[in-house]
């Protein structure tokens, strides 16, 4: 079996204690939620923290509840709980659908929403054992100096591969980050950056505590489509999340589309303001699909043909809306 590198495990009961541990062991510590991303990565020697801080015992990170006009989801809520939560299913069918599409049943029980949002970016040249990466000659995300995806590239373009991120982006969610200095809330749109080495703005001394999703008014429709070769236990080759707010007369107030699993940052499709006031009919949806297609260019960071992944964008946009309006 692949071994885990040795580390000291901490299981604080309070958020403040967890933050103190992060501070104390700065540079040598990793947080662990469900561990479904971190543990394989440690076995691959992508991370070798001397200290690992578990978040399971901290009760304030758990649970889904309504708060003001928001649905607040604790970072430690398991993906399985998210997938079967009736309020989530009712308010945000696309989020429930994305959660159900993650990994397999056992991993969904272990994995958490916070862990999913903080998922390390993925690349075929990176998520491999140490021996494999050594045979390759490493790459600039870890231990090396070159990128094998963009030859001669100076920037890592490993793929954002989390299924919930694109959906929560279309829903206008924000996240709360706690640090020894207090708490800050930032829109998810500003949480992700286009850097494959670290694609979020979270600081090493911060913990993601909760996700806030505005509770929709009538007329919001949401959809999610995931392209994968295998029907379960398969990271996305392409994610398409859509959300549209319709007025009473059916006209669009706004529409959002996020395409992911292409580059390091989930791509929020730009310049959709012009769709305001239009009916969400077949012609509009086809145009939306074309808009997304124009703006997205898959990379070879995944071993699935890029041309096909791109061609699937308009198809999946259409299917996501069809599902949304069911």
């Amino acid at each position: 079996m692949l071994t885990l590198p040795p580390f000291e495990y901490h299981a604080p009961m309070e958020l403040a204690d967890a933050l103190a541990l992060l501070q104390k062991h700065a540079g040598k510590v990793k947080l662990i939620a469900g561990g479904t991303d971190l543990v394989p990565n440690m076995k691959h020697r992508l991370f070798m923290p001397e200290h690992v801080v578990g978040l399971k015992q901290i009760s304030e990170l758990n649970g889904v509840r309504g708060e003001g006009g928001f649905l607040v989801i604790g970072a430690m809520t398991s993906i399985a709980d998210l997938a079967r939560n009736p309020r989530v299913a009712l308010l945000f069918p696309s989020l429930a659908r994305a959660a159900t599409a993650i990994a397999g049943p056992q991993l969904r029980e272990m994995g958490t929403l916070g862990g999913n949002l903080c998922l390390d970016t993925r690349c075929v040249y990176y998520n491999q054992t140490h021996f494999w990466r050594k045979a390759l000659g490493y790459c600039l995300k870890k231990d090396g100096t070159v990128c094998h995806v963009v030859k001669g590239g100076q920037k890592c373009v490993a793929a954002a591969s989390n299924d919930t991120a694109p959906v929560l982006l279309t829903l206008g969610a924000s996240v709360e980050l706690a640090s020894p200095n207090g708490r800050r809330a930032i829109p998810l749109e500003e949480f992700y950056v286009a850097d494959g080495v670290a694609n979020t703005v979270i600081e090493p001394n911060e913990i993601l505590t909760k996700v806030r999703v505005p509770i929709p008014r009538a007329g919001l429709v949401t959809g999610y489509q995931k392209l994968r070769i295998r029907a379960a236990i398969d990271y996305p080759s392409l994610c398409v999340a859509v959300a549209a707010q319709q007025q009473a007369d059916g006209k669009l107030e706004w529409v959002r589309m996020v395409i992911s699993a292409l580059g390091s940052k989930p791509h929020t499709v730009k310049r959709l303001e012009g769709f305001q006031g239009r009916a969400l009919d077949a012609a509009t949806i086809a145009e939306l699909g074309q808009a997304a297609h124009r703006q997205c260019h898959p990379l070879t960071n995944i071993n699935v043909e890029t041309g096909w992944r791109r061609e699937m964008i308009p198809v999946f946009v259409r299917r996501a809306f069809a599902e949304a309006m069911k």
Partner: protein
Amino acid sequence: MSGVVGRRLRKLDSLKKATGEAVYADDISLPRMLHAKILRSPHAHARIKKVDFARALKHPGVMGVLEGKELPGKYGIIPWTQDETALAVNKALFIGDEVAAVAAVDELAAQEALELIDVEYEVLPALVEPEAALADKANVLHEGNKHGNVTKHVDLTFGDVEAALAKSAAVVEENFFYAGSTHTPIEPHCAVAQYDGEGNLTVWSSTQIPHYVHRELSKVLGIAPARVRVIQPFLGGAFGGKSDPFSLEFVVAKLAMKLGRPVKCLFTREEVFWAHRGRHPMKMRFKVGLSKEGAIEAVDSKILIDGGAYSSFGLVTAYYSGQLLTGPYQFGTYHFDSTRVFTNKPPCGPKRGHGSVQPRFAFEVALDMAAEKLGLDPIEVRRRNFIGQNVKTVNGQQITSNGFLQALEAVEKASGWKERKGKLGYGKGLGVAGSMYISGTAYPIYPNDMPQSGIQVKLDRSGKVTIFSGASDIGQGTNSQVAYLIAEEIGCDPRDCTVVAADTDLTPVDLGAYSSRGTFMVGIACVEAGQKLWALLSQAVGEKWGVSTEQVDASWGTFRGPQVDQQMSFRDAVQLTEAKFGTLGATGSYRTEKLGGDYRGGTIGASPAYSFTAHVAEVHVDVETGQWKVQRIWAAHDCGKAINPTLVEGQIEGSVYMGFGEAAMEEMTYYPSGLHKGPSLLDYRIPTSVDTPELSAMIIESVDPKGPHGAKEAGEGPLHPVIPAISNAIYDAVGVRFTELPFYPGQLFKMLKEKKA
């Protein structure tokens, strides 16, 4: 006689597996046991200049190290092509090839120590593609091989193929590519060795060939075979991936001998990919000629086989790629030209349906193309070419029973072929394919006149039946089969049998779980041993009742005579018999008869009995995305006689799912450097339960004259037709043909787009 054969029974060990009680190699832990890890080459082709253990030996957990020159003896499954050493002595031949080993107090220490071994390599050009390896005369993987980078070239002709093609009404000429795939048994390879103070070596290994491991360990380590014991514990799947001797078996044995402590080595999943021995990639050119009526006049193939770095079973693979194609259809003439080439990649070997799944795919698709040219229904063309029973194939193989027509009819009916074919509308289609496979082989790998399988049975006054079986149960149920067959003969309850299996100290020799030989060969040995015991039992009981032996009957633990009051328990019967004859025991064996064509290589592919299969697949294509789904597969398999129908259905289902995975998503792919693109179960995708199609497994019983109770194989044959049946169904659905595996949806999308343009 006793109604065990043919009944649906639970495997004798299934509860043990379900409850976790079963002990697998990795469950074995001995006092003072060390853990070994193997250092592997990061270069696809490199000369090893120097291995320096100085830093590794300073690691506090390290207890010992091992390098290639300490185990220089060559080994390999086929005696004529032994080209492996436990650790590279001179050159490393693929990324992942074994170079050195360490034994340490635990796995972590061993893994850390690997990083501290300094190896100086001289990197050589990597030959990754078979064409390049074939052409390169200067750069030879196995220096001194008189055929350069060729493992084996076979060129056999049966009849005047050219003339037959010339007079054919329809000729199809097409290139096919079958991508390499691997077995992915859920249990990784594991071996534990113990060397005692008396000089006896015991190796527990997750192998499907304990006998060959026994021979090779003895040879390489230089210990008399009588001092070596190989035990195969419970096995978590193999599928041909554990039918070679592997480096770890020699490494743990040598380290245990060197260090005087037991040593274990468990492969990681990645290492299972390096060990490989999976399905060979084959580039195939097929020419198939049919007469106006659809008779197969000529088949001509040229096949380039990508062997990877070592021979493994490659000599046989080269033959099997041609020799096993000549049924269930009559070929007018036949020629095949197959070349297996060494490349700097993990070695290929035997995967379920060894050597013949690839050409079967090509041929069954080509046959569909030819039928289309003639306007013939794909099932009809197959029916017209049926070779029949008790006939010789064009290449001289003797076919005995043959239930192919019934199989074809069964899938035709069950799928509603006649009513539905061509009427499902665009995007939905039906495809058919047939196949034949061996039930063991007349070729015992190393030439000898001794039995291929043996059984010993001990009976005593307790009523317990202990069966000593050399055969390897790798999950397919051989241990249960053995008990059913003995119980059938002697009238005991099969659950009163204890099967002691695959332990070279305790059990008679069996050559192993390969070539689908188990049920047939060990089965015949069981019937022989059982009949010998029955002769004694029926005599003792008959005497007691004053009736003839023919009047004594027994089943499920009860003996009965012609009178109502003549009844006794199996235990009482054994006591009578033991009193009369003394201590009870019997043996049975299977000896290969002389079979095969009268030409060089004619015995390879010769089997005492052949199984036959027919499949229909229904495929629905999502024409917008290229994604396709098998709606259902109807699989009918002629296994001669189902000793336990549930186990046969399990084998049909497992075969179909394995073939489906190869068709849909499995592929061993490499970068030009020779580095595997994703040696893990995440990147190398195999279907999950959500992916696998609905399936109807149907059993056809042709009752073979030679098989035990008429049985033939069921473990490998049913895999063959899945892949061409799916390709043919996709063509029926959308009018484009897959001639290359896997049938990626992205590729189908592209083909559909090109067709539209």
